[in-house]
């Protein structure tokens, strides 16, 4: 059985060590691994997917520049998370100084970070597209064969490991692996039709 978090941490440790010894490609790997999570995190603060991506880029660059000081006391992702949070907050503060309609104080920023998205800076067209994407996505999940849909929900919503899902569904881990992959492919196919 693969211990998911330990596996991930080991990979991070190796990549960080490589970066610290001069391998910039290893940092690319870390970016690819965590880009989505960091953008999601930053988006909780800035409420704009496009700006969130720019701020997330800044966060990664700051992390790279601070990496020589990283001694592994915390897990790499925990450390990166803190940098991203601080970068997002600083961005909001500087945005406040530029635009009077955004007024945040430090305590508000903490609340914003922890709450679901209540506001959006999307245009009406973007909101419409988002709705359409979500409708397509939800429909694509409903259209999945039952065993794929169950496995997919156990994984994505309940966060179960492959082994746990295999136990729950009384089938081998390999079967679960295959079902999840095929579920993603089927949903991706529907979204490609809409987005690409």
């Amino acid at each position, binding site marked *: 059985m693969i211990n998911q978090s330990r596996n991930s941490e080991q990979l991070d440790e190796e990549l960080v060590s490589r970066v610290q010894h001069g391998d910039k490609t290893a940092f690319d790997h870390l970016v690819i691994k965590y880009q989505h999570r960091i953008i*999601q995190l930053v988006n909780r603060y800035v409420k704009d997917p496009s700006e969130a991506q720019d701020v997330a*880029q800044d966060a990664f660059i700051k992390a*790279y520049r601070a990496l020589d000081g990283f001694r592994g006391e915390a897990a790499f992702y925990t450390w990166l998370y803190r940098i991203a949070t601080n970068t997002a907050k600083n961005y909001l503060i500087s945005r406040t100084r530029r635009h009077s309609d955004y007024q945040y104080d430090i305590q508000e920023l903490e609340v914003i970070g922890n709450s679901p998205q209540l506001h959006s800076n999307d245009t009406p067209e973007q909101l419409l597209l988002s709705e359409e994407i979500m409708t397509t996505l939800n429909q694509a999940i409903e259209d999945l064969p039952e065993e794929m849909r169950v496995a997919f929900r156990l994984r994505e919503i309940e966060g179960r490991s492959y082994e746990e899902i295999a136990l729950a569904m009384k089938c081998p881990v390999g079967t679960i692996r295959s079902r999840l992959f095929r579920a*993603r492919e089927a949903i991706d196919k529907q979204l490609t039709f809409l987005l690409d």
Partner: protein
Amino acid sequence: MSEDLNLKLSQFIDNELEHDEALKLLNALADQPHLQHKLKRYEAISHAIKSQVYLEVKADFSANIAQQIKQDALPFIDKKQSFKQTYQWLALAASIAIVAFIVEQGINNQRFNSTATLQMAKHWLPKDSDLNKRIGQYLQDHSPDAYANGEIDAKPYAKVTIVNPK
């Protein structure tokens, strides 16, 4: 081949890939933009299920970061190299200082010997002789040693020259 990689992507986002396989996949991702696109799509789907918000990473996200850090000097490696360079300069400066010290000591010794010779000569010559007075004046004018009442009051010292690497 592509389906095999896509299957690995699916495992990767679930943290279900072994360490070595994950590393191989990351290496493959670096060279295959379509694979990166697939990963971003899977991640967007995964996030959307939980949050009901679809958010896909821009195509050039990691490339922009790579571009920025490419321009950065490697902070840790350059610090090490800078230390090595500084160390080399210090070593050079110390070597020059030692050589200067040795040379200076040699010169001082010669001067001291000259002084001693002249002192002896002065001692042998009658005190009121013109030559004696001239030797005394010479010693006073040219010796680095302090004189008190025409007599030597030697305080040995070393002059050390430090070379500033700047």
